[in-house]
């Protein structure tokens, strides 16, 4: 749907944009031909395996690898000592920040192991069986240290300290705590006074568990590092340039020496924005002189790759009798795992970013503990604080006797309001989303007895950043787009649509290649909901460059000036002289490229600015079985301002997938650590992600409030859909049961206990 009153600010006469053609990589992916991370084979390849710590916290006194090295078939053994001393200077790691020294230490323990599953040594051998047998011959002398996995426990005086001498970022020394990695704060207005003057104030504590991105493809790579210093890596990831950058930083080699070829990626959701295996495979390869493959098992994925942080959130939120929000005070703690670099910043930024709330005091802490180092997970940091805020708004609406949707409408940000980082909001669409939710039949549909309906809003900032694309015209008039953003959910199709739209060509005249790092200029990771916006802008700019060249060539053919040639419907049209009114098709111009100046090709490298946040509103109906505590999702609608949907089906798919991951976060998913600090549920049987029979269809409404900083209005869609579901589900369950649900997941035992405690 178009946002009322906004269509006229932006063109909508598209030919290809907004359609849903079959993706160019489709046949390979439905026939099993597409090569993913674990599928690639290099000639002479060795099988690698990684020895991982069985302890959550221990000092490594010594590692004896002699027996492993002596085993027939073993070609290389690597430990932390093989890693160069990397820099502690801060660098971008996917969507987060950190430093190469910590990242190297996360790839392989150096001095201490900091979580169960922390890599300690690695072997490359002629077969996987020999590599695994060699691991069993490695003797590690551990000095066990006390561990801590709980958030609150990690902050207690006397808690085991992960990194001695670590300074708390963003903190006065007096406020620093041993395991606090960073403090992030937002302070504006006078929340204490606002809350004192509020008609109602709710004061609550919310708790969420660490959850995993749960991509179905485990991490995998093949690396080959020759003695001349040149290397190749074949891997699936959210950014092969990221692999190049981080591997080079860890191993301290020039980036140009590493050529990374992207393999198809089997899901990431933020979790494949940093390296785990690649530097290890590189070191093994350098020692062995042969390509080395490393793959993770599902257990390794759970134990050793980034989950999203669990949280404890204390909040006081006030409102006037008419529902106007009046002051918020929040302090929250996220566990960032074994290394600094967490999500508290975004938790602070997004918490109340969708509301006009002049008086706010929000402090977030990243807290270290003996769990794997967290990684981005779809809108990192936003779902947890939004869960708290949106739950409190729901409760305030109940206490004040207000409609929860109307209360949100009353407070929603609009264009010109102060934005997330102080500058005024641009063309934002939260109001439009709320209005669309209000108009949706779901919102007013009758509920069955025992059912409840919850609503929640939220936002993600989205991002732009650096991308490169090339558009070249073959001499038969077909067009090639070459870019560097891994296709994680149909982006080849979106790029082809945008190039075809720009050039006035049919969709299937444009073919898209995602090139390796040595074949195209830099692009940042596929993350931050940036690819269709930023790489899309690079593709459009490159297509416009090719188009300008096509016009120039047509002018040359006709013997006129370039400004006397127009481009219409995929053809050049002469407006003057003897050839006035004549047309030349793209194919006709391309056929003469050899005599008009050579190949027709254009490249665009840009740092895309002007991204706008995406807002979402979700409506969730649940039926709660009070006998068992089981919660069934009976109806679900996801509304989102997407700016402009380039490929409608894949945009809807982002909303449906994000909502479902959020439902899993709300209902089932949690890391469970036992008293020994070991993960008790490192598999898909016991870490339960939603399955098909858990869910109804997920209805979607695409609100289109276009972004003027993208030629077709794109805002980015991937992350916002996971922000509202935690509260939408919990609010629904609260309304179904009459009991406020403040701790996730809403597993049957927890719901059963809460409902029965309330009944007395």
């Amino acid at each position, binding site marked *: 749907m178009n946002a009322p009153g906004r269509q006229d600010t932006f063109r909508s006469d598209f030919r290809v944009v907004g359609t849903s053609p079959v993706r160019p990589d489709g046949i390979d992916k439905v026939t*099993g031909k597409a090569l993913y991370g674990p599928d690639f084979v290099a000639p002479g390849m060795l099988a690698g395996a990684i020895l991982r710590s069985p302890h959550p916290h221990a000092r490594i006194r010594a590692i004896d690898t002699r027996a492993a090295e002596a085993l027939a078939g073993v070609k290389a053994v690597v430990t932390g000592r093989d890693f160069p001393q990397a820099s502690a200077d801060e660098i971008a790691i996917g969507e987060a920040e950190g430093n190469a020294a910590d990242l190297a230490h996360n790839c392989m323990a150096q001095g201490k192991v900091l979580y169960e599953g922390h890599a300690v040594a690695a072997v490359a051998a002629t077969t996987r069986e020999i590599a695994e047998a060699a691991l069993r011959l490695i003797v590690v002398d551990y000095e066990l240290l006390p561990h801590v996995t709980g958030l609150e426990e990690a902050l207690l005086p006397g808690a085991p300290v992960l990194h001695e001498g670590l300074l708390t970022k963003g903190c006065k020394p007096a406020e620093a705590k041993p395991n606090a990695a960073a403090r992030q704060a937002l302070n504006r207005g006078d929340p204490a006074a606002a809350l004192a003057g509020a008609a109602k104030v709710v004061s609550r504590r919310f708790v969420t568990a660490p959850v995993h991105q749960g991509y*179905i493809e485990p991490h995998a790579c093949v690396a080959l590092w020759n003695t001349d210093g040149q290397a190749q890596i074949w891997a699936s990831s959210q950014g092969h340039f990221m692999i190049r950058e981080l591997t080079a930083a860890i191993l301290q080699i020039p980036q140009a020496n590493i050529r990374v070829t992207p393999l198809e990626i089997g*899901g990431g959701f933020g979790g494949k924005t940093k390296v785990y295996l690649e530097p290890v495979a590189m070191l093994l390869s350098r020692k062995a002189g042969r390509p080395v493959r490393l793959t993770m098992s599902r257990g390794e994925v759970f134990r050793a790759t980034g989950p999203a942080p669990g949280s404890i959130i204390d909040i006081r939120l006030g409102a006037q009798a008419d529902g106007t929000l009046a002051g918020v005070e929040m302090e929250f703690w996220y566990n960032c795992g074994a290394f600094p670099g967490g999500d508290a910043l975004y938790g602070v930024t997004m918490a109340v970013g969708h509301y006009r709330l002049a008086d706010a005091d929000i402090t977030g802490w990243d807290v270290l503990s003996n769990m794997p180092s967290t990684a981005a997970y779809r809108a990192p940091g936003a779902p947890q604080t939004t869960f708290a805020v949106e739950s409190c708004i729901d409760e305030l609406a109940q206490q004040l006797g207000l409609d929860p949707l109307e209360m949100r409408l009353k407070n929603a940000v609009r264009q010109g309001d102060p934005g997330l980082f102080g500058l005024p909001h641009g063309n934002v669409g939260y109001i439009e989303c709320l209005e669309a939710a209000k108009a949706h039949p779901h919102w007013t549909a009758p509920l069955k007895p025992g059912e409840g309906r919850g609503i929640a809003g939220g936002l993600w900032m989205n991002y732009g950043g650096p991308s490169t694309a090339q558009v070249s015209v073959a001499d038969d008039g077909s067009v090639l787009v070459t870019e560097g953003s891994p296709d994680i959910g149909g982006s080849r199709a979106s790029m082809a649509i945008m190039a075809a739209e720009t050039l006035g060509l049919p969709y299937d005249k444009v073919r898209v290649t995602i090139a390796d790092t040595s074949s195209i200029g830099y692009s940042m990771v596929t993350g931050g909901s940036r690819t269709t916006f930023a790489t899309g802008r690079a593709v459009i700019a490159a297509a416009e460059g090719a188009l300008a060249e096509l016009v120039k060539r047509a002018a040359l053919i006709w013997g006129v000036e370039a400004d006397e040639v127009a481009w219409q419907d995929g053809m050049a049209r002469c407006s003057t002289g003897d050839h006035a009114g004549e047309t030349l098709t793209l194919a006709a111009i391309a056929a003469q490229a050899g005599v008009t100046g050579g190949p027709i090709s254009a490249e665009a490298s840009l740092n895309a600015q002007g991204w706008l946040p995406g807002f979402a509103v979700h409506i969730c109906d649940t039926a709660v079985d009070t006998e068992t505590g089981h919660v069934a999702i009976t109806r679900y609608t996801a509304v989102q301002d997407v700016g402009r949907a380039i490929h409608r089906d894949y945009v809807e*798919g982002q909303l449906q997938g994000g909502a479902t991951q959020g439902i899993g976060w709300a209902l089932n998913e949690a890391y469970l650590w036992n008293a020994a600090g070991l993960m008790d549920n490192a598999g898909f049987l016991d870490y339960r992600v939603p399955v098909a029979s858990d869910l109804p269809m997920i209805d979607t409404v695409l609100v289109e409030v276009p972004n003027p900083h993208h030629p077709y209005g794109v805002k980015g869609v991937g992350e916002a859909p996971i922000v509202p579901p935690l509260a939408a589900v919990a609010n629904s369950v609260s309304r179904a049961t009459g009991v406020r649900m403040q701790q996730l997941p809403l597993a049957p035992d927890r719901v059963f206990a809460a409902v029965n405690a309330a009944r007395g």
Partner: protein
Amino acid sequence: MSKLHVTTTVNGDPAEFLCDPGATLLDALRGNLGLTGTKEGCGSGDCGACTVVLDGEMVCACLVLAAEAEGRSVRTIEGVAEGSELHPIQRQFLEHAGLQCGFCTPGFIVAAKALLERNPDPSETEVRYWLAGNLCRCTGYDKIVRAVMAAAAELRQDTAALKGVPA
């Protein structure tokens, strides 16, 4: 340890390989036979990415020993299309955008085909329960279920039902 010699049939063609006694059918398909369309997501029978059909029964290839394929017939994702002609389930997955990353897709398609061979006219609920052993983390299942329903209608040549499946 000596290897076992296994003679089997894969997608209708004779196949043989040597394997360790502990090797899984998944290892043999992906490693020995180079059929990497069958994916490993968990190795414990929980995700369905390695779904194949063994003598007509849907199984997780990671839970079957390679040696158990001796004398039997295995059908994988590579055998779903008839040559270059996509099976209606494959085509409907594309038409309905029933995949995002595509990693779980081979398992879903093999499982969906097994469903439609038993039940040509499944309800939405029957589709959801049949596919409950296949994990997809990208799509929220909505478009997968629609694709399977559309493929069922196409295979039944039920044009009314086909039109009734929302795009």
